[in-house]
């Protein structure tokens, strides 16, 4: 297949994943803003930082971290190239470029997503309507995901799109940890203090895993366990370990298709082996923040290497 097409499938999937992740971040931020107005502003700021949009926000809006401003910026501000609306538009542009590699169902789901969100986000969203809008974004995303897994041929194009999904997802989970890591440090882990409980719940909510966490660990919330869950727990579909396993599977399938071991494959293997095959305590001993910074760097390097190895651009 064309390198450009592979790149478009990969980016289509990354942007779709990003829009879903950002909707989740807004959801978690909104919940905190509703329940604790005193910390709302700093919470919104940390949402922007996690989404990588704080700088752009301050450029456009100054320090005005009110719910309305931040939510509008993240959802639909035309001045924000990373708003959900812009990102879905870019996903659709990439889908159009790779149109010949998508099934009609997938294309129509992506296109419908773009049309639906375009209509929903035409005007500023009222606070009462926000939950519905966020639900619609998640639903559109699920629609695309469902048709994708249900109708796409399992060929190289499929693997490139999946790589995009999991790279983006790993990046997102690592960013959440990067922004919130201080909450997980043992020094502030006053077990049972209600502030931390809410904050920790927020972390879990940003990856839609608060139910799963309790199902797995019971009522006890601890920093160590949350970190373990988000970093190492392989059955949790947004954990770093899960994402990396998936990426290695997709890279492995590409290797089988192309009969060529690329540098990207070696890098993917090394992320899993050197960074994620150790107990959580050893990660804490080495410094959680250092670990996350290193992971983000390695993940980004892998992304660049994939673009090079599979000739997305010249």
């Amino acid at each position, binding site marked *: *297949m*064309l390198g450009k097409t592979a790149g478009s499938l990969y980016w289509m999937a990354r942007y779709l994943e990003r829009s879903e992740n950002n909707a989740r971040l807004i959801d978690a931020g909104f919940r905190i803003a509703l329940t604790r107005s005193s910390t709302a502003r700093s919470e919104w700021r940390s949402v922007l930082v996690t989404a990588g949009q704080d700088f752009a926000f301050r450029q456009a809006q100054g320090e005005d971290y009110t719910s309305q401003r931040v939510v509008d910026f993240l959802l639909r501000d035309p001045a924000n190239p990373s708003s959900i609306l812009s990102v879905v538009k870019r996903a659709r542009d990439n889908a159009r470029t790779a149109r010949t590699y998508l099934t009609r169902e997938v294309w129509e789901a992506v296109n419908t997503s773009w049309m639906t969100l375009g209509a929903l986000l035409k005007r500023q969203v009222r606070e009462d309507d926000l939950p519905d809008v966020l639900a619609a974004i998640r639903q559109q995303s699920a629609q695309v995901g469902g048709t994708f897994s249900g109708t796409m041929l399992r060929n190289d194009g499929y693997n*490139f799109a999946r790589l995009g999904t999991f790279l983006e997802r790993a990046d997102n989970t690592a960013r959440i940890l990067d922004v919130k890591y201080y909450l997980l440090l043992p020094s502030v882990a006053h077990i049972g203090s209600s502030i931390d409980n809410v904050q920790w719940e927020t972390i879990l909510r940003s990856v839609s895993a608060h139910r799963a966490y309790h199902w797995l660990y019971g009522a006890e919330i601890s920093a160590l366990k949350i970190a373990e869950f988000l970093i190492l727990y392989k059955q949790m579909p947004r954990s770093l370990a899960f994402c990396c396993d998936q990426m290695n599977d997709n890279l492995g399938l590409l290797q089988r298709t*192309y009969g*060529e071991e690329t540098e990207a494959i070696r890098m993917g293997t090394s992320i899993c082996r050197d960074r994620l095959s150790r107990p959580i305590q050893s990660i804490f001993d080495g410094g959680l923040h250092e670990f996350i910074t290193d992971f983000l760097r390695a993940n980004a390097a892998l992304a660049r290497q994939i673009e090079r190895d599979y000739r997305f651009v010249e």
Partner: protein
Amino acid sequence: MLRGKGRGISFFDEMTGQTSSGQAGEVRSPYREYSEWFAREDTARIHRKAQQAEAFFRTTGITFNVYGEDEADERLIPFDVVPRIISASEWRRLSRGIEQRVRALNAFLHDIYHRQEILRAGRVPVELISRNEAFLPMMMGMDPPGGVYTHISGIDIVRTGADEFYVLEDNARTPSGVSYMLENRETMLQMFPELFAKISVREVGDYPLNLLKSLAACAPPACNGTPTVAVLTPGIHNSAYFEHSFLADQMGAELVEGHDLRVVDGRAQMRTTQGYTPIDVVYRRVDDDFLDPLNFRPDSVLGVPGIWDVYRAGGITIANAPGTGIADDKALYSYMPDIIEFYTGEKALLPNVPTWRCSEPEHLREVLDRLPELVVKEVHGSGGYGMLVGPAASKKEIAAFRAKLEANPRNYIAQPTLSLSTVPIFTKAGLAPRHVDLRPFVLMSPQGIRITPGGLTRVAMSKGSLVVNSSQGGGTKDTWVLDD
């Protein structure tokens, strides 16, 4: 019937045979079964179906971008649910005429780029070629693989009466619209399957595979094995991008842009995930000028540097061949009857619309005298841009156009305002006649000429309008050619 005046003009309706000047007709035989079906149908249901069709076109992304608009908005081409129906015998007659015309066009192109016999014989003026921007001197002496210049052409046909058909225009560069022909049929099949069970309509869905076969049959000498075919598009912002991706998808061909291609080892190669692989046939949807920045327009980023040299050396087939634009030039159009006779030895089976060449002083004088009743077109224009429809224009518009025409007469041709036939469209108030034209699509390969039964019917959606171009608000209809 060709008339000059806009008012009092008499139009032939293809369904009723009625002319607006008078006698009520009876439903013409090709429409009989459809008309009976329609009479029994609940119009509310048809209305609902029509709305579903629009939603279907939107989600499928069958949209186009309009040039000259502020925002590159994607728009739908209006689709009308009433088919345009052509009888088997009408189609036989049309297709014979079309085939003759395409053969002549191809022979003309070969001649123009070789011995130029037709110029020596004085049947076509030399300056019409030598001073024409569409003439590509670099093609002189070149033999395109398989001897084919016009792999894909579209012959625009208008009807003015029960037995009167005219060729309005030849499209020998990159005629578009075939995806609408295919999607219109697909939509009709989904909406009204019962109609197709009742009425025997000839298939159009095999066009993409015929296109693929036809292109593959023109593979260049350098090709070994199964030819690799690619569609070259200017990209997703092009107005016809939907069609480019649609055709590539249906043919199972790669959809490439200029920056995906590069000349490596004397072949045009595409950048795949595993490196560069040669392509054998490129169905290009970019103009000649943009094909190769080294050999044509240096500022073009749409093309492939050096692809021309590969072409010359037999390393790739470019479809349509570079330089075919000379054959669909509007100034040349008026010579088509001579051209057909010159190469086929037969009279043209399908007549031309009478045409005044404004480059000739006598013609110009007559055109200026009769401007309010004529249609004036730019010689190199397309898409309905920059034309004057005399009877529909205001005095001011006519005066402005007169000035343009006098300043540069060579740039224009004029034709009588044709009384284009009408076919009903479905409106809230029931069936209402609207003017139509027809663009059949013709494939040519060394194995022969293949014409898809029917083609794209374009329809002017507003009452009385004669402009059917989609860029000017025209719509489309499914076109049925009946089986015998």
